[in-house]
């Protein structure tokens, strides 16, 4: 996308810039939450898990603020064309990031129930999956800040790896539970954690679609995206 010249009404340009800065700030917090939730899990660090849960309030409050300002901007500025797409994109990305925050918080809350369970090999798998998901979020946020539709497309197709990772976690945890019914409680928490990470991956592809629309004005359709087949049973 070509660099934008300023609006005749300079406050409008400032509002748009502020909006995009807030989305990136929100994304940064969400990224930290994924990272810290996984770290807390690996180290069994309940304090870090608690801190991570609390960060969700920050994400939520930025979302409310972004939404409020977008409502005002739509009413006052009547954005058109590239501006309209930027505003719609910000509104949608904010709600995707809000979900990422919720899911990360949910991971952090499962650190407590899992402490003491002997599932260290599965947790290693979760850690690797978490790194992959965090990388996806990081890339898609870069594609947003740079208005880079090629990068957003890369994230979009990259979700297949996350899905495969999820499938292998599913298989692994299922095996644990079958071998030792005493691990069913911990295993279920691990399943949810893996599913949460997989869902965060989906939110990243949603954001990739939004960025692609913002930059190019054309829609990516989900049916065209490569996907890993789902495991049976």
């Amino acid at each position, binding site marked *: 996308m*070509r660099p934008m010249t300023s609006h*005749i009404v300079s406050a409008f340009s400032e509002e748009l810039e502020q909006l995009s800065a807030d989305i990136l700030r929100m994304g940064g917090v969400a990224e930290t939450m994924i990272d810290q939730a996984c770290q807390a899990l690996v180290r069994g660090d309940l304090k870090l898990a608690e801190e991570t849960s609390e960060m969700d309030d920050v994400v939520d409050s930025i979302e409310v603020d972004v939404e409020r300002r977008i409502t005002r901007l739509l009413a006052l500025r009547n954005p*058109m*064309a590239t501006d309209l797409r930027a505003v719609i994109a910000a509104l949608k990305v904010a709600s995707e990031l809000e979900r990422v925050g919720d899911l990360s918080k949910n991971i952090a809350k499962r650190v407590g129930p899992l402490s003491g369970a002997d599932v260290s090999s599965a947790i290693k798998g979760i850690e690797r999956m978490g790194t992959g998901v965090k990388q996806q979020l990081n890339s898609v946020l870069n594609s947003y800040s740079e208005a880079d539709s090629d990068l957003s497309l890369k994230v979009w197709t990259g979700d297949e790896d996350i899905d495969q990772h999820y499938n292998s976690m599913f298989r692994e945890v299922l095996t644990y539970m079958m071998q030792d019914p005493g691990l069913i409680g911990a295993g279920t928490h691990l399943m949810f954690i893996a599913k949460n990470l997989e869902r965060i*991956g*989906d939110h990243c592809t949603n954001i990739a679609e939004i960025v692609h629309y913002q930059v190019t004005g054309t829609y990516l359709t989900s049916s065209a995206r490569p*996907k890993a087949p789902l495991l049976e049973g």
Partner: protein
Amino acid sequence: MADTGMQTAGTPLSSVTVSPVTDLSDHATKVDCQGIDVFYGDKQAIFDISMAIPERSVTSFIGPSGCGKSTFLRCINRMNDTIESARVDGKIFIDGQDVNSDRVDPVLLRSRVGMVFQKPNPFPKSIYDNIAYGPRLHGLASSRKDLDEMVETSLTRAGLWNEVKDRLAQPGTGLSGGQQQRLCIARAIAVSPEVILMDEPCSALDPIATARIEELIDELRQRFCIVIVTHSMQQAARVSQRTAFFHLGRLVEFGDTETVFTNPTNERTSDYITGRFG
């Protein structure tokens, strides 16, 4: 959007439904402009504009002041003939007929191509006579009853009948601005035109009167080909199916209204509609 739950391999995910751009493929070209140049004396105001305006639809002309959109609009019913120094080159066909041909009487042409102006300009006559004037002039009514019907139909189509039916004998100039503009639209449609040209028809009206006119334009497009010049981008986006962007006497972009306002092809169009111009 990404999947929301369990999917079996190969099942297509719910794909994004993209609403199609306004399909006017079954609408024939009503007004076909080919290579139009307009000069005022030595100064060229319009440069080589070609455009096919579809029937039964609204086409809006947008662009900054002085870009030539009104000048171009006035070519369609030869209003520029009335300006001494103006010269129009190029061809304009309405249903295949060359409007600038010597055989075309401009007065008859203007009954086929009605016009509504920025400021409501009712005749200093009664409401009834404002509407009846055109049909009388062109001998369209065979009896008083016929004429009464035409007046009622035109006022009804213009959404004014209920407001004025009890005071048809009162002067048209006594109506409010919005009512006067609807009276002018009723007057334009009384002679059953094929094309209606509107030159900023709402710029002198309040928002409610504007909304009424916009609603009316939307209804009128079922039977007429409407071309509207407007300075309100939102209005162009709301009422038209096709939008043409003019700049410095040239046609910069002409296309589906939704596309022009969400994803314009040309940078100058984008700069203008997003307020980055100049």
